[in-house]
Structures are given as C-alpha cells and as structure tokens.
C-alpha cells in the first residue's frame, strides 16, 4: 500500500480461481526432536492479490522418545514461494514515532497487520 491508502484510497483487484494445492510433508526439528509438518489444503491464488492459505500440522515429539505428542495446527500463507506464519509478525520490533524500537503492540490473538508500501 502507498500513502494513498492511508487517505482511504481503494483498489479493486481481479481474483484468480480457487485452486487445490497440497504440499509435500516436510520434516522439521524442535529441541532436537523430529516433527512432521504437512500441508492439507489451499484456497486461493499466488502472491499477487489474495494469497493462498495452507493449513499445516506440526507433530512434535512423535518419534517415540516417551513424550506425548503435541500436534499444533496453524494456517500459514504462501507468499512468493515462502510459507509465512503469524509468528513472523508477532515477534517484530520496529521503530515507533518517538524514535524508539518497540515490539509491535499486537493483541496476540485478533490482529490486522497492514504493510504500507512507503510513506511518500
């Protein structure tokens, strides 16, 4: 978005057709434990306009080390080939108008985050 957006300008955008795009399961590690991360479905298009959302499932501690499995489901967005999760924004520390670095004051639950293009 540009500064024009801040003035309330609006743009309509053609949306692509709904597609189904499962991704391959991947193996991640957390605290040395193997975790399976798999995507189950997507619902829109590419990184131009509304982005594809994918539901992922992470199964931590499922490799028989005695701990109970903890399955975490999260919906991530696929943008320019990268899978982006909410934590990418929840942990941001940025410059505030007083010139200090501040962690974004998100509610931690219900948040809208708008990236403007630039100020000018």
């Amino acid at each position, binding site marked *: 978005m540009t500064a*024009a957006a801040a003035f309330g300008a609006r743009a309509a955008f*053609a949306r692509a057709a709904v597609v189904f795009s499962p991704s391959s399961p991947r193996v991640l590690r957390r605290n040395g434990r193997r975790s399976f991360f798999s995507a189950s479905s997507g619902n829109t298009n590419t990184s131009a306009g509304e982005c594809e959302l994918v539901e992922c499932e992470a199964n931590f501690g499922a490799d028989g080390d005695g701990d109970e499995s903890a399955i975490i489901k999260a*919906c991530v967005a696929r943008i320019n080939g990268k899978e982006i999760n909410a934590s990418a924004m929840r942990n941001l520390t940025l410059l505030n108008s007083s010139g200090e670095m501040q962690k974004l004051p998100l509610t931690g639950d*219900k948040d*809208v985050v708008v*990236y403007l*293009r630039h100020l000018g």
Partner: protein
Amino acid sequence: MANKRSDIQKLGGDIVFISVSPTAEKLQKFLELNPNLPKDRVFADNSKTFDAYKAVGFGNLTDVDKNTKPEMKPPGFSLQDWWKYITNVIALSPVDPNEKLTGPPEGVLRLGGTFVLSGNDIAYAWADALPGAHPEPEDVVKAATNAWGSA
C-alpha cells in the same frame, strides 16, 4: 484501512500499520500529514535490509510479473490532498539522508500487503501486486469477522 479500526476493535481486535522509513522524523511528518492514523499504531522498518518486509515474503516492484494486470482505482484525492502529497513526497521518501544513491533506493521499490491474524493462524493474506493494488478495506473486515466471529 485506518477508518476501519473501530470495526476491527468491535470484533475484539486491533490494527497496526508498518511502513518503510529510515528515520523517526519522516514517520512523524507522515503522521502529521495523516492525522486519521493512530500514532501509537504506526511503525517503521528502518533496517537497511527491510527485514520486516522480507520476513513475510513481500517482494520488490522490480519482481512484479509483467502479466499481472490488477484493476486500479484513482486514490480519490481532493485538490488539497494532491497538493499535500506533491509538496511532501520527497521529504517522506524512504531514503536515508546520509546514504549516497547509486540507483533507485530499494525502499521506494518495496511492496506491501495486509494480514488478518487469528492466534497462531493467518486467516487472510494479501500481497499488493503493484503500488495501490491493496485490498478493499471491507474485505479485510469481512475476513476478520469470519475468522474471529462477532464479539
């Protein structure tokens, strides 16, 4: 989108804005010119590498697929708005005054976007295809309502 903050708050959420600016002075000037924006909800990525933008996968204007043809609407500026824009665009540009330019500054090429978060989930994501090709604010509120339910 700023004028939708009250709708978002009614749903139990809130909104933050992120932009690109190398200095707090430019951010303050921007807020002076846009008094409808809540000062405590606007932040700037002042890193030289645009980390906040890269963290969410947004690209540069130079990366845009030439086949992308978003429908654009004019910004709906009044004459006064246009004057304000033209007389301040250079002062607000994301260029570090101490930096020697050898080409277009990357800050002016960064593209933005919009997210609705619901806990650990991203409930809605939009990447601007071109400057100004942002989502309809009503669509963002609708996505938030669908994700969060009515408060």
